[in-house]
């Protein structure tokens, strides 16, 4: 019930603070929630990926995450510095489905917030919850260390409940991943992101 009620809350918020205000609010929620999740440390990628598969990391709060170990990210020296991670179903899809069945169509406020975020922050959101979600992952990545290095999160691709897809041209370049690879992954996954060692030399000359 509470998640369905959230839909009308966003309408109220948009009336009071505008779409940009809701974007800021969601980002603050992401920051605050991430700050309440404790720090985690892993010896190496193997132990981190096992923890992700077993749902023991902070990233698992959003549901089942699959480490795509066939898609490792390497630095300019050819060493593995990260991987792609994907969720088959966005954790907000059940909320959206319940809202659609219980209340009716999704509020236009959802689209207003999404558009505001896409135009002014990062063109990757397919629903207003993506705003919260991206910030949350970015913040918890800072609290997770692998081989002593904190992580950085890059949201790469999303598929919404309407079937609309978004690929972040900015972030795919940063992690040296082809957009076509992203399109292939979006057939099976709704949200794809990269976790890499913060500060790794991903592009440029050696």
């Amino acid at each position, binding site marked *: 019930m509470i998640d369905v009620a959230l839909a009308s809350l966003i309408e109220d918020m948009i009336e009071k603070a505008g779409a940009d205000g809701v974007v800021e609010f969601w980002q603050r929620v992401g920051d605050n929630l991430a700050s309440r999740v404790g720090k985690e440390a892993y010896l*190496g*990628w*193997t132990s981190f*990926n096992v923890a992700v598969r077993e749902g023991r990391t902070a990233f698992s709060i959003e549901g089942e995450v699959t480490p795509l*170990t*066939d898609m*490792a990210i*390497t*630095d300019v*020296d*050819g*060493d*593995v*510095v990260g*991987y792609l991670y994907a969720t088959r179903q966005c954790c907000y899809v059940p909320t959206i489905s319940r809202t659609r069945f219980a209340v009716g169509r999704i509020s236009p406020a959802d689209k207003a917030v999404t558009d505001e975020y896409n135009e002014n922050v990062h063109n990757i959101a397919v629903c207003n919850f993506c705003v919260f979600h991206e910030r949350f992952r970015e913040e918890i990545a800072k609290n997770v260390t*692998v*081989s*002593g*290095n904190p992580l950085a999160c890059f949201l790469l691709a999303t598929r919404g409940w309407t079937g609309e897809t978004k690929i972040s041209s900015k972030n795919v370049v940063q992690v040296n991943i082809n957009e076509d690879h992203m399109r292939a992954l979006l057939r099976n996954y709704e949200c794809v992101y990269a976790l890499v*060692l*913060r*500060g*790794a*030399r991903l592009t440029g000359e*050696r």
Partner: protein
Amino acid sequence: MPYAGRVDKTMGADTVGHLKHLLETELKRAREENGLDIAMFLGVDGRIFSSSIPNQLDPRQYRLLNLLKGNLAHICSQLSGQNMMLSVQQFEAGTIVISGVGDRAFLVFLTTKTVEITKMQGVLANVLKASIVVRHLFESRPITPEILASYDEAVAGELKRLTRILFVEKFGETKEFKKNKEIAQYLQLKLGALVGPGPLQEIVTMAYNEVGSTAPYMTGSHWERFLTILVDRLREIEGDSVAAKAEKEWRAHLKQVLSSFV
């Protein structure tokens, strides 16, 4: 030092060869970045420790070099006797910049380009920076974060860049790289003979990805895990007895290579 999982891959000078390479690299960088023609690192007794000289000298450069050679005894005596620290000499043929490196050595830069003394502030600052860097290398001091913190930002940045250049240019010659290469080739050869070239590539690539590193940067524990993954996949394809035999042979070889002195 294990490189797997290290974001900033740099290398300190482990051998005299590395130290010499760092010295030559610094002279070359100082010469090229400041648009100078010749750079030399000499002792106050006149010995040339290291130099960066173009393959072909034009007549003016040659003349300036001869001029320096003629004045060398005088320069050396000024450096050793009078503690000269920095000198800029301008001749018709060009300009000579001399900068002391500690008590017993100095740097000389020559340029035949027309330069105005009043506009040499930047070049002189860079020459002084190069002197501090060369002194650090000449004294064979390690390049650690603690020591870098004692220098100003420009000097620390240059020393850090040198360790990166050394890694890029010399890591392929290190003992650990050669050992890793040998192990990777051995395992690929042995596994390839059992499963064929197609599955080999898939198994090996996935195993590296699962381990979270690549052949050049693997450590002993990485290789142990890598081998376990290979053997598990081999067991699925070829059965228990083939996998058991391979594991026994491969682990023995792995242990031997990793513990070998060379």
